[in-house]
């Protein structure tokens, strides 16, 4: 097992490195627009693969699979709601964002805010706030595959070593040719993610008979609104994700990259196909594993009632799988994680180098310097081992929720300096208060955050107009 794991990981690292180096031939690494967003010139398919690989992270085969295992088919409803909203946003709002990026030559999402509202200091604050919000989200991405790799090798490859391999892959795929190396390696990694998850489902269907679904039905796991998936819980999980395409800069930035309108349409098409397939497969892994456990065919020693154990479902399930498949799936989770983190690292580097006053003059050099700095920071943060995967990922998205009215206002030309500054202060303050204090609220705290930020934005947008 150790030898096989080492071989497959070595092949994976070699392929990512080779593709990164090859992509450099097509990149102009001295041009910031080319380095940070591939010069707005990617094909629809590569745009879709980098969008999908950036969006779909280790959360899918660790968090979502564990959630499906413990809570049933409601997890599918939660994740497909995200997909449907994202497709709607990409079609109805993303098209306008793409047009703006062409007309104004935007490189970063915060550049849109800075230009629309004309407040450099508040824009810089949003950049820093986004950086802080994305640290937990990124850390779990490296931690997920490291934990699994350590688990399937019986602890021979220790978590810190696995973390170092993940960090090295992130660094190489990001630094070598910027967005091009990220996008090209994302395309390869996306293919690994979907094919290995399909192989895992095929193995499970061979092991677990259809009667397993009777067991799931008996435990109310085929009921999408069972005792776990109450309306409150469903919306608490769903709200941060359905606006993910607008509030998370690493995916927002990907709207800029298709080379023309046809490429943009193809990006949305291939992303939807990938997203739907990967979502159904990840949920099926959880459901089939639970069915197999209930029938006594698979051993996954996870207590479904204990939420802290849910992220252990996939690692423990892989101990039942044939060794080659277990390693392949582990590498696919590695790929899912690194393909998300490399995008975040490059996007954050581009935002700081473009939107922080005084940095822009040496923007590209600063951006390139920040890539290894961020990678090292993420390694250290993941080494501290934060808690349960789903909650951390949702926390990060929750912190970014107050930026929603700022982006929508900027896209459609609403709002003013006052509304930008007021919402930049009140929105993040409300989000931080909700996350840190976790007060009891009659509606999900995510809805409260959006309401507070939106009302602040609207109220301060209307006031100056009345004076006029």
């Amino acid at each position, binding site marked *: 097992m150790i030898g096989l794991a080492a071989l497959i990981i070595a092949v994976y690292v070699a392929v990512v490195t080779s593709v990164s180096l090859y992509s450099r031939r097509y990149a102009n690494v001295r041009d910031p627009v080319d380095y940070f967003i591939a010069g707005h010139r990617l094909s629809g398919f590569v745009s879709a693969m980098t969008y999908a690989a950036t969006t779909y992270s280790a959360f899918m085969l660790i968090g979502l699979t564990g959630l499906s295992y413990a809570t049933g088919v*409601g997890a*599918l409803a939660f994740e*497909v709601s995200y997909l449907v909203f994202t497709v*709607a946003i990409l079609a109805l709002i993303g098209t306008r964002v793409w047009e703006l990026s062409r007309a104004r030559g935007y490189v970063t999402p915060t550049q849109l805010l800075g230009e629309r509202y004309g407040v450099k200091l508040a824009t810089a604050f949003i950049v820093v706030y986004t950086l802080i919000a994305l640290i937990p989200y990124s850390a779990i991405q490296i931690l997920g595959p490291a934990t699994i790799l350590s688990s399937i090798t019986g602890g021979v490859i220790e978590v810190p070593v696995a973390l170092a391999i993940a960090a090295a892959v992130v660094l190489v795929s990001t630094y070598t040719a910027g967005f091009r190396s990220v996008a090209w390696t994302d395309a390869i990694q996306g293919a690994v993610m979907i094919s290995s998850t399909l192989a895992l489902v095929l193995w499970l269907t061979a092991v677990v008979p259809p009667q397993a679904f009777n067991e799931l039905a008996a435990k109310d796991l085929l*009921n999408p609104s069972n005792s776990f998936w109450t309306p409150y819980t469903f919306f608490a999980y769903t709200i941060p994700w*359905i606006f993910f395409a607008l509030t998370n800069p690493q995916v927002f930035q990907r709207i800029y990259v298709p080379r023309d309108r046809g490429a943009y349409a193809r990006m949305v*098409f291939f992303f939807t196909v990938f997203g739907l397939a990967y979502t159904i497969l990840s949920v099926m892994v959880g459901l089939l594993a639970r069915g197999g456990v209930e029938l006594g065919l698979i051993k996954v020693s996870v207590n479904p009632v204990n939420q802290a154990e849910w992220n252990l479902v996939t690692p423990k399930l892989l101990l039942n799988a044939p060794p080659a498949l277990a390693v392949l799936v582990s590498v696919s989770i590695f790929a899912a994680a690194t393909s998300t983190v490399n995008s975040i690292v490059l996007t954050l580097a581009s935002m700081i180098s473009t939107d922080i006053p005084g940095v822009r003059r040496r923007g590209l050099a600063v951006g390139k310097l920040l890539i290894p700095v961020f990678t090292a920071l993420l390694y250290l943060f993941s080494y501290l081992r934060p808690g349960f995967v789903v909650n951390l990922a949702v926390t990060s998205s929750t912190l970014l929720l107050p930026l929603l009215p700022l982006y929508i206002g900027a896209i459609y030309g609403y709002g003013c300096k006052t509304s930008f500054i007021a919402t930049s202060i009140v929105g993040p303050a409300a989000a931080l208060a909700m996350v840190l204090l976790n007060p009891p609220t009659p509606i999900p705290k995510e809805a409260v955050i959006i309401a507070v930020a939106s009302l602040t934005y609207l109220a301060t947008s209307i006031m100056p107009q009345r004076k006029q």
Partner: protein
Amino acid sequence: MLKIAILALAILSLVLPFILSGDRTLATIVSYTALALLTMVLAQVYLRRWARK
């Protein structure tokens, strides 16, 4: 009209679990797959029209 239909499907995805409440068959998987595919088709029609502009 197309915009409203896409938006309606997105909102439907949020209430579908409660419409299917109590169902213990595989209806959720089938319903959500159909919902996602229909959204994809409508979005593509909208995007292809936009791309021809």
